[in-house]
């Protein structure tokens, strides 16, 4: 199944996990302690986040730590910016059209 940033952040639990690991790298157990859902459910969420590279795994000693990857989040901003550019272009054209309408009327 395809994984990407948007799918990942669409889920509230995953957003909560992201905000946890954004503060500090954490082990899966430490993450799971913050949630009422089962450990398996939490590790599924972590898997999604890892697959879309929003979090990275790091092996320290024998423990796996998960840490936030801010670079990936920039994709979201980029996309919003692209869409914004299209709409602004469109609306600036509409400004011009409306101005002409006004001139015709007066």
């Amino acid at each position, binding site marked *: 199944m395809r994984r990407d940033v*948007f799918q990942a952040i669409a889920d509230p639990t995953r957003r909560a996990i992201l905000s946890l690991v954004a503060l500090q790298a954490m082990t899966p157990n430490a993450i799971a302690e913050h949630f009422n859902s089962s450990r398996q459910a939490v590790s599924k969420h972590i898997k999604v986040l890892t697959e879309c590279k929003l979090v990275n795994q790091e092996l320290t000693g024998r423990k796996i730590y998960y840490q936030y990857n801010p670079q990936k989040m920039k994709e979201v901003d980029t996309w919003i910016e*692209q869409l914004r550019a299209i709409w602004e*272009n*469109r609306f600036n054209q509409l*400004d*011009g*059209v409306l101005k002409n309408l006004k001139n015709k009327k007066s």
Partner: protein
Amino acid sequence: MKKETIFSKDPQSNSLTVVRAFDAPLDSVWQAWTDSEILDKWWAPKPYRAETKTMDFREGGLWFYSMVGPKGDRLWCRVDYKTIEPNKSITNTNMLCNEKGNKSPNFPIMNWRNEFNQSSGGTTVRIEITFEKEADMDIVIKMGFQEGFTAGLSNLDHYLSMNSEPARS
């Protein structure tokens, strides 16, 4: 003076909201959104231009148009009007289609709700675009990423024809 476009995305409800104020009275703005001759003048983002094939602005009616690129490439779109409250709101569905108006199989349907409000010295338009499912938003977003949305419009036909199978990876 340029007005700011407020743009927000809510992944939880699979929706995008765009809000923009216009320095014009409500009836003019309404006209600009509902009269195809005027729509053709501004609806397509540059370097595209919109060209209406048919317009039937009523509940259950259809706006069938294309966006024509600088090289003459054409992207067909249709807007099906669901509800219309004059000078107030329009709800419709938006989709890409072929030159006969049949929906492109791989492009999701977008549900739009446009609200028009008189504001101090002008008119505010609020557009909420909702996708039926998360995966639909995903497709539109993917297209934006991979093609670079503005330039990507010209590649959309190509993209759609290349992706007649559901994406797999």
